[in-house]
């Protein structure tokens, strides 16, 4: 039987997400690369006690055209669906304009694991690649190093960091074929392409669906092996 990973609706794509799931959320922080329709569908589906792994914890206004409606995982925080966030840039740069996450964090409603962005990226890469842990120089001598194993290689100190995996990845791609081969657009590749291999069920929210053979095989960024479900915006 030919493979076809298309799912008819965002509602169907997220219907089986159970309470307590760990979900990677693509994008860098702005609306570019943000799996907005999957987020809205998950809000409506209502699964709670989620752990969200994403670069930010949902920022208002970042990388947005003025007047654009903000749709990101802040909506899940506001809807009390999030227990923990793993992120590098969790709060608004401006203390006077706190995001939903900061308010929930101060109220004690949500946990934070803050990770340097490069370490977050490499932990996700390692998770998708079957590498359980790795050493990095980032964070030595800082709060990030607390409780972690140190080791010296060639005279320099490094920290041992564990990988990250998830039950689901919600990602946004520009084009995908029905086999799941996908390409992104511009700076929206960032965490999207990186997360595709690191989750049990990877769901792509795609702007344009094409047929196998339409994408240049030399230019495919995410090979279809990493993709389980595809939904057209």
């Amino acid at each position, binding site marked *: 039987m030919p493979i076809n990973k298309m799912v008819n609706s965002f509602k169907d794509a997220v219907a089986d997400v159970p309470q307590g799931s760990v979900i990677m959320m693509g994008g860098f922080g702005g609306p570019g690369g943000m799996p907005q329709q999957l987020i809205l569908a998950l809000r409506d589906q209502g699964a709670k006690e989620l752990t969200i792994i994403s670069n930010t914890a949902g920022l208002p206004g970042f990388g947005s055209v003025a007047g654009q409606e903000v749709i990101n995982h802040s909506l899940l925080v506001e809807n009390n669906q999030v227990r923990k966030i793993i992120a590098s840039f969790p709060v608004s740069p401006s203390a006077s304009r706190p995001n939903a996450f900061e308010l929930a964090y101060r109220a004690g409603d949500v946990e934070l694991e803050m990770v340097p*962005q*490069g370490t977050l990226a490499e932990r996700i890469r390692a998770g998708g690649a079957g590498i359980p842990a790795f050493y990095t120089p*980032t964070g030595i001598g800082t709060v990030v190093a607390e409780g972690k194993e140190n080791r010296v290689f060639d005279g320099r100190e490094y920290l041992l960091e564990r990988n990250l995996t998830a039950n689901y990845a919600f990602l946004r791609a520009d084009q995908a074929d029905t086999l799941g081969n996908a390409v992104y657009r511009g700076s929206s590749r960032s965490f999207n392409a990186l997360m595709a291999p690191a989750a049990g069920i990877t769901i792509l929210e795609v702007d344009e669906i094409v047929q196998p053979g339409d994408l240049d095989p030399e230019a495919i960024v995410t090979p279809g092996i990493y993709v389980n479900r595809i939904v057209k915006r």
Partner: protein
Amino acid sequence: MAEDRLPREVIAMRVAQELPDGGYVNLGIGIPTLVSQFIPDDRTVVYHSENGVLNYGPMATEEEQDVDLINAGGQFLAPVQGMAFFHSAEAFAMIRGGHIDVTVLGALQVSETGDLANWMVPSRGIGNIGGAMDLAAGARRVIIAMEHTTPKGDFKIVQNCTFPLTAKHCVSLICTDVAVISVTSEGLVLDEVAPGWAPDEVQAITGATLKVSRNLKEIAL
């Protein structure tokens, strides 16, 4: 009596002189972002942004704004020839792997041994690490561009940082609105002063001891 302090653009102009021809450079948010406007005409600098963009040019015009073309500060970039896009793990492999020649960052505090604190003001109780720790630990040269003191007059150049660290022993040069200071194995060396500023006047607003360079100069652009 000390003269006025230099405007942010002039700090950026001074930092721009430090960027090597053909260098790969990552600019942080704030004064560092301004540096790209002041690169001498005879030099080419290739900019890296940790959200996965290499070789970006000017910021976008309002008509060009595209949510899929931003830098790590969330600013819209103009589409230019020769750009490359890559995912975040690759963006940070470039940083950690020693492929970034210079990063220019802002700072809350810099210590006399080159420790940097720039991600959290303790009174807020929460902050953003973002890419700062990787850049500070991974770039081949870390230059700080900042105002010499806080708006209240508190020292930002200190013996020991009291704010949470970004990385230890990482800063090599500090460019402020009154001085250019090198971090050396013998401590902080005052290399240049802003026009009208005497070394003791710079020392008076610095929380660590400055050695005055034998070749002390006025900041020139």
